């Protein structure tokens, strides 16, 4: 692997106990972004957004992938500890990083419509009872309810509105999330999606889906 994985050793501090530590799903997403490095740099992205940034590992890495082309990288999370962890992780990195405590991109209203050049989301995808969604800060990172889709489904209709004309959306899924159904849904809304990378990690069959606007 070419690019260095961001240092997130500060996550061992008690203040970050509720923050999701990078795991196989995180690394798969890093690998997918790195694999697309040439085309991502050629895009000259101006605004990138990571929803649910957790440790900030992906946001930080994204800046490295895009370098030396600068971009504004906005990281959001509902967990305040995650926003602080993200800030600490990205401080080590060269780039223009901003953090915001908010659900998805609700803080921005329509200001980001047609404006996000690279959108990244490693959602809470684990299949759980619906009652477990957001029951704690920690659970907000992984509890996905029915089919592990409840949280993602709240955001999906907004994806086509957010992406810029040449924008891309990278999403982590497991098979239980029915990735083909996600692809079909977004196709109805003008986005073409493909499974660009897969990996088995324990019982999880992880995939990275990539979406762009249909020409």
């Amino acid at each position, binding site marked *: 692997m070419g690019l260095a994985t961001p240092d997130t050793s500060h996550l061992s501090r008690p203040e970050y106990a509720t923050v999701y530590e990078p795991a196989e799903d995180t690394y798969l997403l890093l690998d997918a972004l790195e694999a697309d490095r040439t085309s991502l740099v050629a895009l000259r992205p101006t605004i990138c957004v990571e929803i649910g940034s957790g440790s900030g590992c992906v946001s930080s890495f994204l800046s490295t992938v895009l370098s030396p082309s600068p971009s504004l990288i906005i990281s959001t999370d509902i967990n305040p500890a995650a926003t602080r962890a993200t800030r600490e992780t990205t401080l080590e990195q060269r780039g223009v990083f901003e953090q915001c*405590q908010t659900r998805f991109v609700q803080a921005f209203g329509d200001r980001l419509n047609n404006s996000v050049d690279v959108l990244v989301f490693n959602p809470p995808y684990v299949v759980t009872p619906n009652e477990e969604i957001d029951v704690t800060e920690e659970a907000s990172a992984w509890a996905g309810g029915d089919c592990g889709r409840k949280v993602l489904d709240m955001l999906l209709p907004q994806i086509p509105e957010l992406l810029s004309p040449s924008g891309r959306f990278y999403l982590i899924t497991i098979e239980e999330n029915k990735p083909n159904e996600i692809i079909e849904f977004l196709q109805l809304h003008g986005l073409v999606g493909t499974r660009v990378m897969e990996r088995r990690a324990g019982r999880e069959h992880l995939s990275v889906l990539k979406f762009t606007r249909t020409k």
Partner: protein
Amino acid sequence: MRLITHNMLKCHVKNCDNPDKQFPLRFKGAELEQVEAERNDEFLVRMIPRLDWRALLVTTKELGIELPENIPEEPENDDAFLQALHAAILETHVKEGSMVCNGCSHEYKITKGIPNMLLAEHEI
């Protein structure tokens, strides 16, 4: 939080939907810090169309920050303009304070440079 992010934030309290009032959010007790950063003109020029210039003027005036009223015809060739823009949106950080909605008066807090835009159940 840099002013560039503030230029993207809107009040989203339920029923608060007067576009003139919910954006931009008005700073209250803002603690500012200027942090020098490498200037990239190509990036600045790409960012201009994404900015809400009217809102940026309102905010910079509120904070006493210099910013030209108008975007020049060829910003890429206007060094003074780019320097002012760079200083305003990328080098001006708000560390602490709050942002108030002129429409519904809701206050969003900024702590250690991170804005909290989460709302309570009844506000959504």
